[in-house]
């Protein structure tokens, strides 16, 4: 069971004055170019260097480091998915989280405060229990909680029976939790840069150099850069890149919004998710409540969504957590998530030789940052899918071997 003592707010330590070369310019060529300096791209570069000894690597980024979804997510970490393939990759990721700060030598405020997923109807209870048993089969830690046990862990939850979405039980993963996303990006960036990786910001890919079906490099706003291998780790912009390289991907880019309250006393020391009411909430280390909403319904690259989505989510949150009625909304923002038809990622080879894809993490990529980087690095280094990544190949949409995680994911991921 999670730590029951109330947490105190913490002050963050000062940053070191040097993390990576901020104004790095690209060399003429690299062994590997990673497109996208978000968490997954930086982790890929780090594991290429650390696990495979490939250090002549550039991570190129059209904006600034971790300026996309890596800096916009709600930082939830868990691995209690439904299917075996998901348990494989997400739990590998969670195991990496458990030693990550020590390994890269950088504080990330990884906190295993547990993740609770509420059930609000009979069918919800049944599907969550199915999930709970599936987790046991896969040796993923999972506990079933009664409403009273929910209340014991999180006293601010309203468990009365006469609310619109009564709490009828919950699954709980004690090893789940949160981390500070920007610190995770900086930690990976520093560790990768220490091993010789170039991190190049303000460098947008405008095309690929492809000869006889084989990628030879990328065209960018900072000139052409040659590479033996290229990895696309570009989240919401993956479709744009894939189209430049001449193939289609089954992804749709949608806005996903999140919000924070001002700093408050600690009232919640676990993570609570509810797919049925479209709320997931945790309280960050400094005291702000962090909440995520569902995706907006339409395709977009605008990094913003409609306020009615936030309003809908807050209405449900205030009923579940009556104490939140006193809180104010400080700030909302949106990111662009790339959603695959089965709500599972697409990792592996592409129709272009030596061009690799890692995308489709949709609304839940943050938790997978270490595992995603790990399998992507192995896939690029070996030129064939890593064992954990193999089920996530692009051709599963032809074979029909979908990994349908819509049920386990709900809206919240």
């Amino acid at each position: 069971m999670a730590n029951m003592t109330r947490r105190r707010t913490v002050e963050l330590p000062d940053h070191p004055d040097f993390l990576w070369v901020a104004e790095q310019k690209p060399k003429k060529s690299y062994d590997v170019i990673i497109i996208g300096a978000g968490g997954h791209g930086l982790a890929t570069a780090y594991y290429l260097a650390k696990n495979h000894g490939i250090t002549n690597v550039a991570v190129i980024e059209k904006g600034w480091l971790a300026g996309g979804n890596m800096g916009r997510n709600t930082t939830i970490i868990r691995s209690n998915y439904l299917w075996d393939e998901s348990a494989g990759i997400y739990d590998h990721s969670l195991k990496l989280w458990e030693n990550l700060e020590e390994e890269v030598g950088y504080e990330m405020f990884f906190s295993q405060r547990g993740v609770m997923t509420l059930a609000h109807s009979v069918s919800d209870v049944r599907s969550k229990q199915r999930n709970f048993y599936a987790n046991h089969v896969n040796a993923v830690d999972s506990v079933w909680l009664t409403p009273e046990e929910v209340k014991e862990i999180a006293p601010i939850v309203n468990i009365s029976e006469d609310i619109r979405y009564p709490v009828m039980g919950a699954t709980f993963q004690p090893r789940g939790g949160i981390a500070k996303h920007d610190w995770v990006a900086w930690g990976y960036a520093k560790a990768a840069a220490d091993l010789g990786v170039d991190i190049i910001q303000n460098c947008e890919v405008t095309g690929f150099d492809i000869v006889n079906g084989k990628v030879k490099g990328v065209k960018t706003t900072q000139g052409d850069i040659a590479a033996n291998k290229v990895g696309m780790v570009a989240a919401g912009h993956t479709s744009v890149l894939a189209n430049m390289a001449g193939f289609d991907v089954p992804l749709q880019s949608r806005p996903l919004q999140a919000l924070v309250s001002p700093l408050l006393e600690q009232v919640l020391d676990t993570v609570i998710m509810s797919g049925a009411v479209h709320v997931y909430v945790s309280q960050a280390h400094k005291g702000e409540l962090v909440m995520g909403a569902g995706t907006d319904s339409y395709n977009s690259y605008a990094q913003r969504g409609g306020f009615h989505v936030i309003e809908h989510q807050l209405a449900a949150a205030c009923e579940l957590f009556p104490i939140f009625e006193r809180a104010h909304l400080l700030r909302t923002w949106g990111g662009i998530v790339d959603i695959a038809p089965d709500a599972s990622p697409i990792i592996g080879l592409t129709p272009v030789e030596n061009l690799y894809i890692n995308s489709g993490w949709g609304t839940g990529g943050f938790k997978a940052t270490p595992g995603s980087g790990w399998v992507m690095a192995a896939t690029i280094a070996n030129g064939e899918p890593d064992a954990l990544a193999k089920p996530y190949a692009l051709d599963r949409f032809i074979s029909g071997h979908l990994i349908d995680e819509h049920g386990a994911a709900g809206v919240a991921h």
Partner: protein
Amino acid sequence: MLHIPCPYCGPRDETEFHYGSEAHVAYPENSANLTDEEWAKFVFIRSNPKGWMAERWVHSAGCRRWFNVWRNTINHEFGPSYKPFTQQPKSPA
């Protein structure tokens, strides 16, 4: 919130509508003879353009009718909307 131009009712709030994704995705001809690749393309692949996109909406809390409209996915600007089975207006791009 989007202000969506229904071709039957005029502009209305987004909350009156449901989204129907990309417009003009026709059911394949000769469906009995399609390969797995062709089925995958029809079932799973939709263009996901950054820029102008022709898409479907249904005015579910209004006239309850489906229609098509041009919308820019970069800034959510709307172009012309049009009824199904009518001539598609040119992309505003």
